[in-house]
C-alpha cells in the first residue's frame, strides 16, 4: 500500500476525508445561501432567474457544482461507512448507558441521513425540473434609461432553445430578457404547507449536524488552540447552526406567508 492509501484508510485519515468534505460543503452552504437571498428581492424574480442561468451555464461554476454533488455523495456514504465500522468496534452493548456527550455528536449519521433525503427531494423539486421539464418563461422589459423593469409571464406552452434570450431594442430604448421562470416554480412549490414544513424541519437537521460538525472538523484537522478554538466554536454555533439554517428556512416561510 502506498503511503497515501495507508494514511487515508487509517482511522484518522478516514476522518480527515470527512472533515475536508464537510468543510467544503460548509462553504457551499454559505455561497448557496447568499445567492438565494435574491429570492427576497421584490423584482418579480428578475435577479434570481438571471442568477439561475448564470449558475447553470458558466463553465467554472458548472464544474464546481458537479464536484459539489460528488462530494456530497462521498461525504454521505463515507460517513455512513465509518459509522457502520464504528458500531462493529462494540459488538456487545451496555445494559445501561448514561451519556456524557452531546446528543447531536452521537447522531451525526441519523442527522446526515435526514439531510440526504432532504437533498434528494430538494434536487428533484428544483434542479431536476429546471434542467428537464418544460418550465414557464417570463419576459422582463427594462427601460434602459430609467432602469424600470416590467414583468410579463409568457403564455403557457411558450418555449425557446436557450434558458435565456436577451434582445435590445435601441429605438424603443428597451432591453428584453426572456428566461426560464424558476422563481415562479419556487414560489408555487412553497404554497404547499407540507413541503414548507419538510424544508423547515430539515433545516433543524442542518443546524444540529453543524452544531457538532463544524468544530469537530477543525478538531479532526488537528486545529485546537486556546486562541482560535473559541472562535471556531462560536462560528460553528452562531453562523452555521443558527444564522444559516434560519436564512434557508426563511425562504419557504416567506413564499408561504407573503407570496
Amino acid at each position: 500500500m502506498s503511503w497515501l492509501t495507508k494514511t487515508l484508510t487509517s482511522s484518522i485519515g478516514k476522518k480527515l476525508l470527512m472533515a475536508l468534505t464537510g468543510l467544503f460543503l460548509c462553504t457551499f452552504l454559505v455561497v448557496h445561501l447568499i445567492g438565494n437571498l435574491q429570492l427576497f428581492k421584490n423584482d418579480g424574480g428578475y435577479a434570481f432567474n438571471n442568477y439561475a442561468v448564470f449558475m447553470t451555464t458558466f463553465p467554472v461554476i458548472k464544474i464546481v457544482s458537479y464536484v459539489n454533488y460528488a462530494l456530497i455523495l462521498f461525504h454521505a456514504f463515507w460517513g455512513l461507512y465509518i459509522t457502520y465500522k464504528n458500531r462493529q468496534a462494540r459488538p456487545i452493548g451496555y445494559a445501561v448507558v448514561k451519556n456524557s456527550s452531546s446528543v447531536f455528536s452521537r447522531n451525526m449519521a441519523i442527522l446526515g441521513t435526514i439531510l440526504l433525503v432532504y437533498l434528494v427531494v430538494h434536487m428533484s423539486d428544483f434542479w431536476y425540473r429546471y434542467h428537464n421539464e418544460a418550465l414557464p418563461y417570463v419576459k422582463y422589459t427594462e427601460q434602459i434609461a430609467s432602469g424600470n423593469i416590467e414583468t410579463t409571464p409568457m403564455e403557457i406552452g411558450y418555449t425557446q432553445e436557450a434558458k435565456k434570450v436577451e434582445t435590445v431594442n435601441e429605438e424603443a430604448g428597451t432591453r428584453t430578457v426572456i428566461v426560464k421562470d424558476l422563481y415562479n416554480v419556487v414560489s408555487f412549490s412553497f404554497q404547499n404547507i407540507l413541503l414548507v414544513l419538510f424544508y423547515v424541519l430539515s433545516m433543524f437537521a442542518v443546524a444540529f449536524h453543524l452544531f457538532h460538525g463544524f468544530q469537530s472538523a477543525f478538531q479532526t484537522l488537528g486545529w485546537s488552540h486556546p486562541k482560535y478554538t473559541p472562535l471556531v466554536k462560536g462560528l460553528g454555533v452562531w453562523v452555521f447552526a443558527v444564522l444559516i439554517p434560519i436564512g434557508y428556512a426563511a425562504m419557504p416561510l416567506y413564499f408561504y406567508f407573503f407570496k
Partner: protein
Amino acid sequence: MTINLKVWKQKNAKTSGNLETYKVDQVSPDMSFLEMFDVLNEKLVQENKEPIAFDHDCREGICGMCSMYINGQPHGPLEGVTTCQLHMRTFKDGDTIVVEPWRSAAFPVIKDLVVDRTAFDRIIASGGFVSVNTGNAQDANNLAIGKDKADMAFAAAACIGCGACVAACKNASAMLFVSAKVSQLALLPQGQPERESRALNMVAQMDAEGFGACTNTGACAAECPKEISLDNIARLNREFLGASISSQEV
C-alpha cells in the same frame, strides 16, 4: 446501607453472559466501591458460591486496573476518579446499581468484569517509549523545557491506561489513550528522534486492534479519571497527519 447489585456474570471469553442480581447488606458509606465487592465476595465464598471476578491492584487511583462500568458510566458517577476511589456514600440506601465490564471488540471479556486490555500494551509496544537509554537523571537545567510544554506533557503523562475512554466512547475508540501517550513524548526533547514513527506506528496498531474511529463526541475526556484533555486528540491528529506527509517512508 443495603445495596442491590446487578452484575455481569460470564464464565469465560467463549460463553455469553448475563446480569445477575445480588443483595449486599450492612454496607458502610465509607467503604470504597471495591470494598463493597470484597464484602459481597466474602459472603459468596462462605455460601459456597462463585465470587465475582473483578480487576484491581493499587486501590488508590494510579494503576488503572479497576475497570467497572457502573450505572452507565465507567468508574461510576463521580468525575475524575477511578472505581477504587468511589465511595458508597455517593449512593443511597436501597439503590440498585448495574455493573458491567468495559465493552469493546478490542477488550474481550475474560471473566465477569475482567477484560483483556493487552491491546493497550501492544499499542505501547509499537512506539510509546524512548528507545535510547539516556542515563541518569540530568541536572534540571541542562535540558531547557518551557513550563507550558512541561505542564502539558505532565498532564498527558497522567494517563493510567485504564481504558475508561474506550468504555465511554460510542465508537469504542482508543484515541484519548493513544493521544495522551503520543503527546507526552512529542512535547519533550527526549521524544523527538522517534516522533514521526511513534505517531505512525501507534495509530496503525490502534487500528489493527479493532478500536473505532474518533468522532469527537468528547465522552472520553468527560469520563477519564485523570481528566486527559481532548486537545491531545487534536495533537495526535496533527502528529499523525504531519508524520504521514513528511516521513521518508514511501
